[in-house]
């Protein structure tokens, strides 16, 4: 296979367009995360790739072959469902070798493959157990082993961690990523958890309201968001509304400097995003806009400290990693905050935002 391509894919449910003109390339052996809030169309897109939903338009190509109309059972795409969808009437081993048994693989080969896959997902010795006897994490491993049994060309996972508790989820994210790297299967994961996407993915596709908002590596998505939605959805950000003025941005009485002049006409309404870890407090000699500020709240959450400020352009949160500074801040303290030029992202402000 030479990767999976989606061209102009869209899906309508009645008068509602769930997925809008999606064009994506999934490189061979790469793990891509479809990331977005609930109802953004990411699961619908995954189901169209799996063949469980027919697109209303566009095409899906695998290795140059158009598979848009190909039935799900002829695609050989392994899929892990949100609730794992294991068969309760079968044992763990019977679940894992299901695809092999129905395809006519000999019993001995199926059993050997089943044992190898159970070993791969660290469930050796669990083959004879019933599904009801397994924990959530074990069920997820069985679902992964079952989806891998047919040696799929593409491995699809629909919110695979959502049924697990927080601790197990973190462990399984790393485990799943290591397994995928070892097997080198083209993998697409649907998630609404940006931390999960950042942990596992080579490439993240951020979706909103059926549209693809941005495609890029986790670092690109985080540090160079292409619009306000991505900046807001991925990580945390301080937002300010401003107006373009001579290549700078006016917010209230302050004029904020940018690394490169804003590519907007003078007077254009814009939205500025600033990650909380980028501003400097009470620091001189940094290229950027220095503003007066007053500390309103300090939140110490172990590895980081959030310092809430009231500034002349509005409220803001600055985040310091533990050990980054030994200065202490107290509520009511006057200080200055510098917004570095490379830390400001400017987006057009449209529609209701501009009103």
């Amino acid at each position, binding site marked *: 296979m030479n990767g999976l391509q989606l061209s102009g894919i869209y899906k309508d449910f009645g008068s509602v367009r769930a997925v809008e003109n999606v064009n994506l390339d999934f490189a061979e052996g790469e793990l891509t995360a479809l990331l977005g809030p609930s109802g953004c169309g990411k699961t619908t897109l995954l189901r169209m790739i*799996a*063949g*469980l939903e027919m697109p209303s338009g566009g095409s899906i190509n695998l290795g140059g072959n158009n598979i848009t109309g190909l*039935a*799900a*059972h*002829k*695609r*050989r*795409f*392994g*899929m892990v*469902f*949100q*609730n794992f*969808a*294991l*068969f*309760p*009437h079968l044992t763990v081993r019977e679940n894992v070798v*299901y*695809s092999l048994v*129905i*395809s006519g693989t000999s019993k001995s080969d199926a059993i050997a493959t089943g044992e190898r896959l159970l070993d791969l997902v660290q469930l050796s010795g669990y083959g004879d157990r019933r599904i009801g006897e397994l924990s959530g994490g074990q069920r997820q491993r069985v679902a992964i082993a*079952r*989806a891998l*049994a*047919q040696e799929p060309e593409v491995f*699809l996972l629909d919110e695979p961690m959502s049924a697990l508790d927080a601790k197990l989820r973190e462990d399984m994210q790393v485990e799943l990523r290591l397994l995928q790297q070892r097997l080198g299967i083209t993998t697409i994961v649907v998630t609404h958890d940006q931390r999960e996407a950042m942990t596992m993915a080579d490439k993240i596709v951020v979706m909103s309201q059926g549209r693809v908002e941005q495609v890029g590596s986790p670092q690109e998505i985080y540090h160079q968001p292409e619009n306000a939605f991505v900046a807001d959805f991925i990580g945390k950000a301080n937002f300010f509304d401003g107006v373009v003025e001579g290549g700078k941005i006016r917010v209230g009485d302050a004029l904020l400097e940018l690394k490169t002049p804003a590519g907007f006409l003078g007077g254009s309404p814009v939205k500025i995003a600033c990650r909380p870890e980028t501003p400097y407090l009470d620091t001189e000699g940094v290229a950027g806009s220095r503003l007066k500020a007053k500390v309103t709240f300090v939140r110490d959450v172990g590895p980081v400290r959030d310092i809430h400020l009231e500034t002349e352009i509005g409220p803001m949160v600055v985040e310091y990693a533990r050990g980054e500074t030994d200065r202490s801040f107290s509520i009511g303290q006057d200080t200055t905050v510098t917004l570095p030029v490379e830390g400001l992202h400017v987006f057009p402000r449209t529609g209701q935002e501009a009103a």
Partner: protein
Amino acid sequence: MSVVSEPSSAVPQMAAAAAAKRLPLARIGIWAVTLFLCLTPFLLVIAISFGQKIEGASWEWAFSFANYQRVFVGANWPEEFTALYLQKLYYSLYYAVIASVLAVITAFPFTYLMTGLSKRAQSAWLVFILSSLSLSEVFIVMGWDVLLSNRSGLPMVFKATGLTQWLKDVGWFETLRDWGLANPRDVKFKTSVFATVLTMAYLVWPYAVILLYPPLSRLDRSMTEAARTMGAGPWTVMRTVVLPAVRLPLMGSVLLLFVFLLGVYVAVTVFAEPAKQTMAVSVYEAVRGNTLNAPFGSAQAVILLLTAGLFLALGQWLTRRNAS
């Protein structure tokens, strides 16, 4: 303070104690009435089944197994063995098994497809099916009687459209005759096992849909989708995922309808030939019909009841074995 407060707290305590006393009495009363209403008819039938008929008159209380003997080996045993009533029991089981299985087999795909429709469409179908339950057995049998009648029903339609002649031309008419579904000239459905079973299956078909609807609507559709992504075509999905997942409700539905069909009377009297009548018909004839032999009718009713119980127990045993 305590002097004032004690009487006021004692009043509700006494009321609660009185209520607690009344509650067991009320419960016992309800249980007694329920047991009386449920058990009395059965106990009466069992008691009467040991009674004796007085020739030319009514019957009298007794303790004789003669009625049971008559059912199993005939009244003149050991001089003569007669399996007439065992044959009636056989036809009771035969019709009930085939009709209940037929109803469930045909209701299953319908209900499965129905659960895939929108909620609105499902509700409309359920209302329609539930409303069909308001039709009485007599009304339904009357409709089928007209539909299958040899002079004005389907046989005449077959004849008028040339289908009967075509069946004769291709040689299938003789096969129908062998099956008892044709006379020398025309196709006929009355009287036949086919018409009896068909009408009985039709009678309980709405019940089959209603019994199968809850388990099928609760079936996790992601399991069928998972099977599809693993290479299973529609029939394989049905065979390996859907049917095993609902096998217990399927067995339960067949059993329930089977027990219900053991007692069907009107359909059998109209569509079954006299030699293939069931024990339910025989019970009615003994109790209310020509023979007026209530003890013998009661003995047959008890045997029918025990047969139903036996099959229910067998079903329960199979269910437990499958579950384990």
